[in-house]
């Protein structure tokens, strides 16, 4: 009996590891695609209007952008966000940042955000599955995530982004 038990355990572990060998663990699809946006809570930045979950229930397509003033690529992305903000609402979430720097940043480079908030403990970013900055989410009318862009949106990404936004 105990030997049978050993046999079953060994073979099932062996089987799982063997199966596991064929899977590439580094490919991580976003679990959030086609799901409702996760909940979050942010802090207010200066006098800018605070972004909260109710804003995402509006019957329109919108963009949520995770950024930080200490993040170099975010600065590269900024002009593209400015351009997108002409036609869509963009909500910003600053990760591990401080109000003073954000205000300075928005004053010098322009403010693409309709509303924004500060995620200082990084918990909201975890809820959204953000693992690098910048990351951008496109959210549809029904508050579902349509698309997630990892890394800065460059000029040549805009075409793709526009096609999804339509």
């Amino acid at each position: 009996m105990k030997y049978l038990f050993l046999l079953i355990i060994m073979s099932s572990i062996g089987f799982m590891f063997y199966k596991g060998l064929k899977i590439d663990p580094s490919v991580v699809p976003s679990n959030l695609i086609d799901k409702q946006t996760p909940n979050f809570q942010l802090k207010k930045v200066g006098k800018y209007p605070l972004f909260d979950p109710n804003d995402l229930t509006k019957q329109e397509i919108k963009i949520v952008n995770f950024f930080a003033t200490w993040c170099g690529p975010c600065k590269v992305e900024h002009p593209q966000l400015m351009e997108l903000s002409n036609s869509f609402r963009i909500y910003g979430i600053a990760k591990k940042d401080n109000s003073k720097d954000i205000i300075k940043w928005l004053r010098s480079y322009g403010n693409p955000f309709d509303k924004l908030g500060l995620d200082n403990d990084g918990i909201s970013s975890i809820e959204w599955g953000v693992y690098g900055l910048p990351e951008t989410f496109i959210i549809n009318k029904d508050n579902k995530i349509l698309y997630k862009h990892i890394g800065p949106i460059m000029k040549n990404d805009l075409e793709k982004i526009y096609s999804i936004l339509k």
Partner: protein
Amino acid sequence: MIAELGIFFLILTLIISSLGFIGPIFKFNENSEVTQIKISRLIFFCTSASFIILTYCFIISDFSLTVIEKNSNSQLPTIYKITGVWGNHEGSILLWLLVMTFFGFLFSCQKKIDTKFKEKTLSVQNTLIFLISLFILFTSNPFDRTFPPAIDGADLNPLLQDPGLIIHPPFLYLGYVGSSIVFSVSIAILILNNNTKEYFEILKPWIFLSWTFLSCGIGLGSWWAYYELGWGGFWFWDPVENASLLPWLTSSALLHTIIISTKKKSLQNWTLFLSIITFLLSLLGTFLVRSGVLVSVHAFANDPTRGVFILLLLIAISAISLFLFLKRSKTFSSKLQINLVSREGAISLNNIFMFTLSFTILLGTVYPLFSNVIFNNKISVGAPFFNSILSPLMIPITLGMMFGPFLKWEKDDVSNLLSRIRILLLILFLVSLTIWYLNYKGPILSVIFFAFSAWIITSSLFELSKFLSFKPRLILRKVPLKTFSQVSAHIGIALIILGATGTSILRIEQIQFQEINEVITAKNFKVKFLGVKMVEKKNYKSQMGVFEIYKNNKYIKTLTPEKRMYNANKQVTTEAAIHSTVFGDLYIAIGDGNTLSNNSWTTRIWFNSFTIWIWIGVLFLVLGGILSIFRFIKANK
């Protein structure tokens, strides 16, 4: 040509080590000249020769060998050419084999063991060596040629070009592979089906030896990650880190049960089980690292085809050893009742908790893989899971370390114990008050863990105070080595708890674009950024940030964190700069420059409280292990 000689020696190792199991099957080494002792010595010689040849090929940069072409470069400093030998899969498995044969050799030299037992143990060890050399020759031959030969190599992974890497893997391997001899001895005990105490005595020093090396290896690895990776932490619950922690935990449990097994003849089957599991976990660790089934920072050497081979090896060794264990464990189970309130009881309880801890960590480590296979669901198990299981389990483990040593063997009772240690309890109370007074503003968890740490240290020192006598004058009687090593190891753990708590719970982190001459405050330090200068070295270019550190407006020193770009493979690495004090480390890492303005850079500044005590704790831990080994050597003379 010389490389072919290397293969020749490897094949010799394979053939000779096969006698490890052929011998007992055909029974030709009973009463014959071909003993397992001689075989062990011979294969140690062959593997050493093969390893030396590979090292030589690395030094002369023979780029016709695939391994060297991929992992070395003519511009590399000689010391890194040598460490490059184990900075890749093939070479490191050869190192693994070398260490394995080395332990076989050491065991063959140990005196005071009866020949029959020695022969059995070595035949198991030689069989293991046979399997590993089979693995090397068929899936990871370090002497494979590449054609046409390359003009220059692709360079050693820059993360590995660091003094920490010179010693971290060899120590870790000595620990991992050291458990192979513990495994072999246990299997020999099971085969001989004899529960005499002497056999368990033989097991003892090898457990201490491999545990000491493993502690050292893990400590060095953590230290390396702390200053090389630039993430500001010392432990990331990475699968590979966990893989090294698991055998450490089980062999720590083993260190304690072996004492009971040799002293009281009880818990013997548990000791054997732990010995087997420790080695199996080492093998599992190797499988996880080498096959790439889990995402890890150590992913510089993986290949799924090798994974299949190691998996087969792992399954075969586990199945055979566990089968043997189940079959024979009756001989080693004892009917002796263990009292809960006794030294044995405390050790057994602690063992249960340590085993639970390692099993839970194992589950957390491989769960992403299982969930992927069974539920087709990608998840990751991270630090929050591990921290939340570690914290509650630390309570019984701490209590065990505090009061266990004061319990009597066999039978004790609580009221007796309490009256014996009433002074200690009073001191503990005062210590707790002090800790609370100093930290009550901080997070509650940090206060609790600081208290744990202080409690362990206090009760360990109290244990030593028994050897002080005040009358007629203050003298320190001779403390037995056994007590010394135990106290040292326990204090080591306490210091690691202190450092880990400070570094994780009390850390202060600041990330920002810092302009030249801007001053950032971290704890009571002021960090002034003076700018970035370019430095060019033989095999890399570096952007070196210059920071002046002030405390109370007094200049302390200049720190220069770097961002290095290696010439050969254009890889970028971060070199953090650290100012260590006993209260904590000021840790600075520099990132990218601001693309829009020329005078500001991303800087990350941490204040990690008490980090230095982690490393000091590891030293204490290792000292404890060394003292135990020393005790054994002394006893064996």
